[in-house]
């Protein structure tokens, strides 16, 4: 069965989703979904191990060899991503049953889990595949299901947010499709490795240039890179808490993965960074994203919205790491994917717990919660410190790598700006901490007690991971470093 791991990765949640329809009781469906997600986590762990031991794993679907059929191709980069996605999905799902009891009407629970598993399937499918069109198909699965998941939010505004996301997301997907179509026209293939081999011949044509521009723009829409981020804050704010935690920890990572995959593996780094001024473009947009996101976050009164805007800023950090296009820079970006998933997963789950107890995440409702929900608030505190980049947390590790990559290149001003950006993070995290710990509790919330275990276990697992990977950086740094090294090497092979 080990040879079939790549397909099992996708097929387990995919088959699991329609099976959910057959199960009738919501609790049963939850348990089933949890098992399915857990299985795919185990598969991804085995797969990553296999990749680290013996190099890239290739799997031919339908038994047809590569450019004719579809192949799955897993290297260190997507192996790492698969592990992050399936792990976060499983942890978030653990708290799902408790959380959606209060946020989603009971008769919709089955649908919720089906959509959740489909969304997971889509993301895993996008990451695992080595075929450009297959990316689009699975991107559609994950997007469609996430639109529906967001629209399930209790607030009526969730519908509007989902609609906004639907329109922008569809435009993004269409752009990617147009780009893929143009590439197909110029090379006659859809396979990524084959594309990489055949694109250099036609690299100078206007059609390939257009294809590149369309693919990158489409991905950036999905990535919510500033200034294409407009869908993100509302979508995250009004979605059910579980959905927010899941999407925040995974969805933008998948888009970021696609960015790396298309620029480095398909088009090749030297093409990507010479035809368009990508380095300058992404550096500027990343910095702008950090500042606009952080400053907008400071002025929000809804805590979910604060962290949604903070996500835009964090995407800025990743993109800057990407734009440096050195091994250290890419390592920093990949590390930040991993670390950001840990932080935002913990934060949004903790907000889900607050939502569960209080029914609101407005910042004034947080008064005195430091005493009433000590464990939840401590989790927010630690994850918030990690977000700022305090030593001994994961946030510090990725920022450290990012700064050293910048200093390697001698880009001092950018490094300085990033440090200032971190100070802005401090402002909005402190705002929450101050209210939670130093204000007396509201009389309406006097009966509020600590969140149930279903929340605390995954939250604290994530918080401990935040600290653990901040101290013992071997695993995450090694994988990220190896992945980015092989990306830059492969590019040297393709075009000398």
């Amino acid at each position: 069965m080990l040879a079939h791991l790549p397909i099992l990765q996708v097929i387990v949640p995919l088959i699991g989703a329609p099976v959910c329809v057959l199960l009738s009781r919501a609790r049963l469906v939850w348990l089933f979904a949890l098992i399915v997600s857990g299985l795919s986590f185990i598969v991804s762990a085995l797969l990553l191990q296999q990749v680290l031991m013996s190099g890239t794993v290739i799997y031919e679907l339908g038994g047809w060899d590569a450019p004719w059929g579809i192949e799955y191709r897993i290297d260190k980069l997507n192996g790492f991503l698969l592990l992050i996605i399936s792990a976060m999905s499983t942890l978030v799902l653990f708290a799902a049953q408790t959380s959606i009891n209060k946020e989603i009407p009971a008769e919709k629970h089955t649908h919720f889990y089906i959509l959740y598993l489909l969304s997971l399937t889509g993301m895993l499918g996008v990451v695992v595949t080595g075929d450009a069109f297959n990316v689009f198909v699975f991107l559609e699965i994950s997007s469609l299901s996430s639109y529906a998941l967001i629209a399930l939010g209790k607030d009526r505004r969730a519908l509007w947010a989902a609609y906004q996301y639907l329109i922008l997301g569809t435009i993004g997907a269409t752009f990617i499709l147009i780009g893929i179509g143009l590439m197909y026209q110029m090379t006659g293939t859809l396979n990524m490795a084959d594309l990489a081999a055949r694109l250099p011949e036609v690299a100078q044509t206007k059609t390939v240039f257009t294809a590149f521009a369309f693919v990158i723009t489409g991905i950036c829409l999905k990535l919510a890179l500033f200034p294409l981020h407009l869908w993100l804050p509302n979508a995250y704010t009004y979605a059910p808490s579980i959905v927010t935690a899941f999407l925040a920890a995974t969805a933008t990572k998948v888009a970021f993965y696609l960015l790396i995959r298309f620029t480095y593996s398909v088009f090749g780094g030297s093409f990507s960074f010479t035809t368009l001024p990508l380095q300058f473009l992404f550096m500027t947009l990343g910095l702008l994203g950090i500042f606009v996101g952080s400053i907008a976050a400071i002025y929000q009164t809804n805590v979910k919205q604060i962290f949604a805007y903070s996500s835009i800023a964090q995407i800025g950090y990743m993109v800057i790491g990407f734009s440096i296009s050195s091994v250290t820079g890419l390592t920093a970006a990949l590390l930040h994917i991993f670390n950001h998933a840990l932080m935002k997963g913990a934060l949004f789950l903790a907000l889900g717990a607050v939502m569960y107890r209080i029914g609101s995440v407005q910042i004034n409702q947080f008064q005195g919660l430091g005493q009433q929900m000590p464990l939840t608030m401590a989790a927010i505190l630690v994850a918030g410190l990690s977000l700022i980049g305090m030593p001994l947390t994961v946030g510090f590790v990725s920022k450290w790598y990012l700064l050293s990559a910048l200093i390697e290149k001698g880009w001092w001003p950018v490094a300085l700006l990033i440090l200032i950006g971190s100070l802005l993070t401090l402002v909005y995290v402190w705002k929450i901490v101050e209210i939670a710990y130093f204000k007396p509790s509201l009389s309406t919330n006097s009966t509020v007690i600590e969140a149930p275990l279903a929340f605390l276990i995954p939250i604290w697992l994530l918080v401990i991971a935040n600290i653990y990977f901040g101290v013992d950086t071997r695993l995450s740094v090694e994988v990220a470093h190896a992945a980015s090294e092989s990306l830059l090497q492969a590019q040297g092979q393709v075009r000398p």
Partner: protein
Amino acid sequence: MALLVVIAIEIARLKDLFAVVMLIGIYGLVSASFFVVMDAVDVAFTEASVGAGISTLLMLVVISLTQRSEHPVRHRPFGALLVVMLTGGMLIYGTLDMPYVGAGDAPIHIHIAPRYLNDSMQEVGVANVVTAVLASYRAFDTFGELVVIFTAGVGVSALLMTVGRRGDKKPAVAINDSMHKQQLILRIVSKMMLPFIMLFAFYVQFHGDYGPGGGFQAGVIFAAAIILYTLLFGLTSARRVINQTVSQLVAAFGVLLYGSVGLVSLLNGGNFLDYNVLASNPIGGQHLGILLIELGVGITVASVMITIFFNFAGRKELQKSTSENKGT
């Protein structure tokens, strides 16, 4: 081609949504004929059944739920116009270096297509090359698309679900129940047509190996038949035939059927969706595999379309009964 442009401009200009929907249907039909001219019969068939057929129907239902005319827009979206112009310009710029249409040495004709065209008869044993590519070479993409449709169905029913919301004691007034007495000619004609539509759907379903057609188109045509019936005879009588929970189960069953073909090939020692191992000789296996997955596609597509339609129609029913409750 020029007709397409004219229709598109008209769609954007008109304010009456009913006319817009009709035009979109015509747009679908015209582009279908355009595809026929381009020799893409399968695409044309899909466009005709999906673009011109079922999506027009669904949009009509939505209009009946909301209202017929657009809100007047005050501001002039120049920014949007600029972005659209930029994108369009970019696309035209991209076409400058494209190989000419029909040029024999274009990359798409010389790289992977020859194997599809020349060897698929030996390797897959299916006369229609498009079916061979969709259902065998790139079967996993088709599976993905099927899941997209399933996702859409689940998404719509998750959002619009009306079942069990209120105590269903009082039988609600179904959509178009009043039509029973009035549209006599329509009813009789369509009653006569229904069996033929369904028969045609089955023909398309099973003939996909040889001519244009397959699960997607067949599913849509079949669903159109059911929807036609519902429109004319009312939701309640249609529900007597197909109930919503059942149609959802059936949709899941279609996906599972497709998936289990893949799983069986896994268990028989091949890769996922490798049909060669399904039967004793590879061609037989390919035939069996394609037949089963097309069936899965047809089942899911039909039931998802019906589910979506029922959900919208159920909403209408709900709207009606609540407004009646307010009135009394």
